């Protein structure tokens, strides 16, 4: 088994999909839908958004035609792979009453083997961040773990970056270095259209072996490297992460939180599109007889009032406190909790915020106008500025 890079021609790409299907994977990847590039089931490479790209800005997402037929010539859409690993809604168990007793039956653990086709580097980091929450912490979410272990990850390296991207700042891209089964780089050049392919695991190598491909030459390798290099030059946003953990903790009463609260609609879009946000709630539904009940786990958001409900009121009643919770969790508490930032710099929360609130801008404002020098502050005051 060789780990040398291979070249798969565009017209041989379907063979890779066929092999994945033969190996028992259900392929999901980018498709056109809902006015955006979204993740869904893929049968053949014709389902990929050939010739389309996305244009993004704070509060703006637009599909546009490309001059070429690139399959992966876009950045990222509103979906992330978490919808397959940590689904928006999942039944946890069903319960049946008999007399004063009852029986609870857990939902079978998901056994679908997904092949995620077209994973970006930032997204792979986001998956690894959720792994820390659901697999590597004190308790294990067995359903997540099974989905994760069953998954086959095909990275497609970024050949361009969007105006809301800042993975370079977050050290999460644009090049995926490890953690994948296969990594492809799409290259269109002088009428040629091919994929530079590297296996990142024995599983990936075994699949790659079954696909018609030739060995990559050193100029192919250089071209692949240049492609991601280009993306890294195009970051639309930057975020200075130096000391950001302390910066946010120590500026919990900064007046900037009031300003952002004036604009924030508490709509929770940012948390829904974020590939690392993992919060959930549970809902019990019971039939009319009261004998049959089900518990569902559903994505939840720290922007809702119910989220922090405690005897008769919410702990975070103001929008200010909810936005602060969200941003402080992402960029600061996450580091205490899981040893890494909770943000991978994908830019989704900026693009999909209806009013274009930009976390990089919020951090910059707080940094440039700190209440007090870092680490010299004793205790946060209670008064709002």
């Amino acid at each position, binding site marked *: 088994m060789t780990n040398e890079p291979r070249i798969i021609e565009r017209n041989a790409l379907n063979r890779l999909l066929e092999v994945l299907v033969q190996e028992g994977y259900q392929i999901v990847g980018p498709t056109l839908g809902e006015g955006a590039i979204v993740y869904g089931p893929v049968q053949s490479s014709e389902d990929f958004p050939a010739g389309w790209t996305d244009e993004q800005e704070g509060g703006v997402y637009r599909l546009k035609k490309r001059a070429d037929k690139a399959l992966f010539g876009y950045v990222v859409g509103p979906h992330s792979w978490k919808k397959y690993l940590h689904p928006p809604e999942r039944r*946890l*168990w069903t*319960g049946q*009453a008999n007399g*004063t*007793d*009852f029986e*609870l039956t*857990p939902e079978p653990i998901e056994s679908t083997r997904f092949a995620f086709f077209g994973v970006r580097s930032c997204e792979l980091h986001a998956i690894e961040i959720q792994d820390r*929450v*659901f697999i590597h*912490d*004190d*308790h*294990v*979410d*067995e359903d997540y773990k099974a989905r994760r272990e069953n998954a086959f990850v095909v990275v497609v390296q970024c050949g361009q970056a969007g105006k809301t991207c800042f993975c370079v700042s977050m050290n999460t891209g644009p090049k995926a270095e490890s953690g994948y089964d296969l990594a492809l780089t799409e290259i269109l050049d002088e009428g040629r259209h091919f994929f530079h392919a590297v296996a990142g695991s024995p599983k990936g190598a075994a699949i790659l072996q079954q696909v018609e491909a030739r060995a990559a030459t050193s100029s192919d390798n250089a071209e692949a490297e240049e492609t991601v290099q280009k993306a890294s030059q195009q970051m639309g946003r930057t975020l200075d992460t130096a000391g950001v953990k302390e910066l946010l*903790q120590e500026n*919990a*009463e900064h007046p900037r939180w009031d300003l952002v609260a004036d604009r924030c609609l508490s709509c929770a879009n940012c948390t829904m599109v974020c590939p690392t946000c*993992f*919060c*959930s*709630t*549970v809902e*019990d539904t*019971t039939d009319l007889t*009261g004998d049959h*009940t089900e*518990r569902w*786990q559903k994505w*939840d958001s*720290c922007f809702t009032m119910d*989220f*922090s*409900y*405690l*005897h008769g009121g919410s*702990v*975070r*009643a*103001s929008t*200010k*406190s909810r936005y602060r*919770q969200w941003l402080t*969790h992402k960029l*600061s*508490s996450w580091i*205490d*909790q899981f040893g890494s930032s909770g943000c991978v710099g994908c830019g989704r929360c900026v693009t999909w915020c209806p009013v274009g609130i930009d976390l990089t801008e919020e951090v910059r404002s707080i940094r440039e106008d700190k209440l007090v020098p870092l680490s010299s502050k004793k*205790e*946060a005051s*209670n008064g709002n500025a």
Partner: protein
Amino acid sequence: MESVQRQNVMLPSPYRVHRVHRETEDTFTLELTGKDGAAPSEFIPGQFNMLYAFGIGEVPISISGRSESSGGWLQTIREVGTVTRALHRMKRGGVLGLRGPFGTGWPIEEAQGNDIVFMAGGIGLAPLRPALHVVQSKRDQFGEVVLLYGARTPESLLFEKERELWRAKFGVQVKVTVDAAGREWKRNVGVVTSLVERTSFDPDHTVAFICGPEVMMRFSVAELKQSGIPEDKIYISMERNMKCAVGFCGHCQFGPTFICKDGPVFRYDRIRRFLAVREI
């Protein structure tokens, strides 16, 4: 918590209500054994369980002790809403769902050889009670033991017989106060913090455990610090909305901590800075 980890951590197990003890108008204690009557596992005083009322929902409730007769866990609950109301309707012999025990407990070993001050507000006496049971079982290993307890009214005071036992038989300085009372009440009226100065302990060798509403705990900490107990000898039990108790749902976050696994019992100096921020 090994056993919890191996199975589906979100699936409640059936427990039987061995007995229901009425405590006050709105507060009751469920005595819970395995469905077959077996005594449940060890727990650390201060830990909690997620109790599930069939078809209604699940809430965090601290373990308030172990029954001497059945060996069952005691869970003392105040009815305040939907799930606690359903739990209040549970009858002897009934079955409920349970996950746990979860969280950190009171570091009683740290108090050994020292004085201990317990401060409780309202239902907050319940999570402290199992720690008092430990003290009671090896009373000679502790110096002065103080229990300061405040409730809304004389009628809402919990565990009277035990408080009397601790006072009379175990040399615990028990002081009680209420917010409001009729003329027949001959004891203290006022906030629990006012009781501190009427007790004796050596602040240089004292560990304090506090449980009650958040405001009560803030004032209690301030008062204890005033009396000379250092911040790193004060422990408090925090409360937040909880949907999972295992670190998945995110609801219980308090600053960078998850109350369900890093707490509910925290050393005060470790969370002081977050307590100072409103709506955190």
